[in-house]
C-alpha cells in the first residue's frame, strides 16, 4: 500500500497566479544574498567592466527564484502555526499563490534537485514576475522507503516580459 494520498494527485496541473515579487531587485538585498552564497562577484555591486555586457549591476543567477517572499499584510504562517508541533517552519518562498498540497501537510519535505535554464540576469531596480505549477506528483519506492515526488515548473520574467530563467524543481515528501 502506497503512502501517496489519492487526493494529492488532484493538484497536478494546478498553477499559481502570475505573481509580482513584493520587492524590486534591490542593491542591499543583492549584497546580503551574494555574501550568504559566498560569491562576492563585483558584477553584483556597482557598475563595472564585468557587468557592462549585462547593462549594469545584476543579481546572482538564481536570485529571481528567491524573490517571492511574503508581502506586508499577507497571512503569517510562522505566527499562525506557532503552536503546531508538526510545523517545520517552511513558508512559501517560491511563490505565494501556488496552493499548498493539503493532503501532504504532515509529510516532511526535502529538496530533491532542479533543472534550470538561464536566459538573462535580473538587473538592480527591475521587477520580477513568476508563474509556477505542479506538473507531476507520484510515488516511488527507494532504498530509503517510499517517497513522494512533487514536480514544480516555474518561469521567471521581468515586468517587461523578458524571460530570466525557467526551473523544474523536484520536491521530496516522506
Amino acid at each position, binding site marked *: 500500500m502506497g503512502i501517496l494520498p489519492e487526493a494529492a494527485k488532484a493538484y497536478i496541473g494546478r498553477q499559481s497566479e502570475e505573481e509580482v515579487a513584493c520587492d524590486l531587485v534591490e542593491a542591499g538585498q543583492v549584497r546580503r544574498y551574494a555574501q550568504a552564497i559566498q560569491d562576492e*562577484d*563585483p558584477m553584483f555591486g556597482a557598475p563595472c567592466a564585468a557587468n557592462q555586457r549585462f547593462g549594469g549591476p545584476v543579481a546572482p543567477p538564481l536570485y529571481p527564484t528567491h524573490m517571492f517572499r511574503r508581502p506586508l499584510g499577507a497571512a503569517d504562517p510562522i505566527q499562525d502555526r506557532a503552536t503546531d508541533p508538526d510545523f517545520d517552519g517552511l513558508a512559501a518562498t517560491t511563490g505565494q499563490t501556488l496552493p499548498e498540497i493539503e493532503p501532504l501537510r504532515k509529510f516532511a519535505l526535502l529538496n530533491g534537485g532542479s533543472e534550470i535554464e538561464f536566459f538573462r540576469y535580473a538587473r538592480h531596480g527591475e521587477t520580477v514576475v513568476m508563474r509556477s505549477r505542479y506538473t507531476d506528483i507520484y510515488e516511488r519506492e527507494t532504498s530509503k522507503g517510499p517517497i513522494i515526488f512533487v514536480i514544480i515548473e516555474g518561469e521567471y520574467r521581468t515586468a517587461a516580459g523578458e524571460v530570466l530563467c525557467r526551473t523544474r524543481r523536484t520536491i521530496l515528501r516522506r
Partner: protein
Amino acid sequence: MALGPRRDFEDVQPGEQLPRLIKGPFTSPHLMRWSAAMENWHKIHYDKPFAIEHDKLPGLLVNGSLKQQYVVQLLKDWAGTAGWVWKVNFQFRAMNLLGETLAVWGKVAELRRATHYGLVDIELGIVNDKGIESTPGKATVALPYRGGPAVPYPFVPPAA
C-alpha cells in the same frame, strides 16, 4: 569570486577538469545567514532537536538551495566574461551536514558546435571531505568562438 577571463570554445578539451570550488567547513552561522537572505525558516537547517527528533534526520542539513548556488557559481566563473551558463541540472542524492567541507567539481564531457557559439556539456557534482558525492548533475555552457563576438545576451538558444 568573479567571472574568469574570456574563455573561447577552442580553448576547451573533452576531459578537462574545471577548477574545484571549495566551500566550508559549514557552521551554523553559514546556514542561518543563508536562511535569512532567502527568508526560508525551514527548521531542519537550524533547529537540531526538530531535525533529529521530528524529521528523523542525522543532524542539521546544508540547504540544497545553498549547494545549488555553488554549482552555478563554479560554472559562471568558468564561462568567463564572454560565455553564458545555459542549462544546469542536479539531484540532491545525499545529505550534507554541519561541519562538512564541500568541493564542487566539473568535467568537460562533450563539445558541440552551434551557429553562433560553441556548446560545452559538463558533468558536475559536489563531494564532501569523505569523498561522498551528494549532488550529481550536468550542465551546458555556451562559449564564443575564437576571434568572434561574445555569446548573445540575453541568451538565445540554438535552433533545435
